């Protein structure tokens, strides 16, 4: 059985659903595929976003918000506490509802949403038969002498669709454009010849629990730093209201070689929340890298974590993925209306201009900060606490942290237009 659409989006997270929505709003017929049996579950995320970035990308429904946060508390290895001025507020989301609603908005715009659809290959554009996922890597390309990395496929229009299993049945779906929104475990990009492999240094490997019966300030997000707590990463405690909290840790894959994320989390929870109930325990991975080099290759487009659109400093990827999804969805709709796939290239250009360059600076900042030993982290906290209160902003913290690296501070000032 085969179907034909303008666009197939693989993955119904925030980036995929947003891309599907904007492509459908622009007049495209869209199939949105999700491998899991439901959308938004399990939640593999800290769930925090800033109000400004979320407002910029979607009309906020109060049902999505578990808690509104007015303060950030950064805790150094020896326990110095810095509370930089946020200049706004944050939300801790209820992603079970949020992700579901974003897919509903896509459906409302006309997209077909289908769960339990496990995509396992791209269909070549030159009419060859379906790919076989168990063949050795590389055979998924249209043909060996014109591997995707070498340029356009023989037919000149890339890939004709995807192969998948749906309720145990083999299926194919065809489309003019295929969007890889398949998250940290993205394979769509690899099949199209785009290098999406995350270096283990940049992979933040995460363990997260939802706790009940905890006592904490409901308007504060806490971040713990230090080699014993979260080497090359941080541990977060985010309130979710009603005595609940999203507590998790992300550490670099380099640190995870020695000790896994779940062990750091278990230690912390035993110390800090000994009597808490555990509602969920989940694993996760966040690609804290610069954006992939190639966001569009022929008729394959990448968005969200699949495109490494996560802010590499904070590890936050909800709103930046949605922005990528929206830019891509709009470019797709324009390209289809004009019947000119070269217009897809508007998307990488817009991404680079508005976000990509900033993420490169964030990545350099992260790479510098992650090398700091505990003494340096404590020293930064002490120095920030010596600043006048009005200077204790997030930028004040970074300026203090990177004061021995004036080049990087200058780059920060230039990239983010700071004064």
């Amino acid at each position, binding site marked *: 059985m085969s179907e034909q659409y303008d666009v197939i989006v693989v993955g119904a997270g925030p980036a995929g659903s947003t891309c599907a929505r904007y492509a459908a709003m622009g007049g495209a017929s869209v199939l949105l595929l999700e*491998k*899991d*049996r439901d959308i938004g579950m*399990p939640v*593999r995320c800290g769930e925090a976003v800033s109000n400004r970035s979320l407002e910029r990308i979607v009309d906020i429904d109060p049902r999505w918000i578990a808690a509104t946060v007015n303060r950030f508390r950064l805790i150094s290895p020896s326990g110095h506490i810095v509370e930089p001025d946020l200049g706004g507020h944050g939300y801790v989301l209820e992603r079970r509802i949020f992700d579901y609603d974003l897919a509903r908005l896509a459906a409302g715009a006309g997209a077909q949403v289908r769960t*339990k659809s*496990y995509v*396992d290959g791209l269909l070549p554009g030159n009419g060859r038969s379906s790919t076989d*996922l*168990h*063949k*050795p*890597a590389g055979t998924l390309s249209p043909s060996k002498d014109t591997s995707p990395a070498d340029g356009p496929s023989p037919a000149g229009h890339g890939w004709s669709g995807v192969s998948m299993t749906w309720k145990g049945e083999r299926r194919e779906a065809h489309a003019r454009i295929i969007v890889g929104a398949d*998250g*940290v*475990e*993205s*394979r769509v990009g*690899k*099949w199209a010849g785009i290098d999406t*492999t*995350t*270096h*283990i240094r940049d*992979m933040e*490997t*995460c*363990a997260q629990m939802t706790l009940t019966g905890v006592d904490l300030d409901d308007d504060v997000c806490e971040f713990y730093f230090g080699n014993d707590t979260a080497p090359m990463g941080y541990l977060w405690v985010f309130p979710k209201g009603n005595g609940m909290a999203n507590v998790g840790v992300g550490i670099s*894959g380099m640190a*995870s*070689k020695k000790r*896994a*994320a*779940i062990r750091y989390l278990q230690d912390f929870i035993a110390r800090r929340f000994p009597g808490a109930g555990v509602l969920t*325990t*989940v*694993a*996760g*991975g966040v*690609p804290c890298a610069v954006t992939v080099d190639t966001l569009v290759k022929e008729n394959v487009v990448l968005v969200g974590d699949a495109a490494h659109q996560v802010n590499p400093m904070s590890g936050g990827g909800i709103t930046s993925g949605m922005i990528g999804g929206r830019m891509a969805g709009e470019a797709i709709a324009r390209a289809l209306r004009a019947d000119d796939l070269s217009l897809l290239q508007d998307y990488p250009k817009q991404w680079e201009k508005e976000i990509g360059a900033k993420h490169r600076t964030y990545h350099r900042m992260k790479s510098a900060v992650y090398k700091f030993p505990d003494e340096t982290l404590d020293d930064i906290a002490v120095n920030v606490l010596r600043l006048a209160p009005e200077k204790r902003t997030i930028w004040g913290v970074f300026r203090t942290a990177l004061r021995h690296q004036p080049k990087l501070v200058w780059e920060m000032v230039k990239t983010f237009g700071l004064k």
Partner: protein
Amino acid sequence: MLLIEIKPNTCDFCGCCVGVCPEDAIELQEAHIDIIEDRCTNCAKCVWVCPFEVFVFNKPARKQPAES
């Protein structure tokens, strides 16, 4: 020869390992994970990044020195 093994009933299917696998050698479905033996080069990146210590790297047995 595949040296990497997945401990049964420990995987949370998060995809961290797939993200770092340079060979596209991991098949990850909603609640099923498999290493594609033909592609795996035993580089162990999946072992290193797994948040739940799901993978085991079985070091190849050293060749016994020939008896004199």
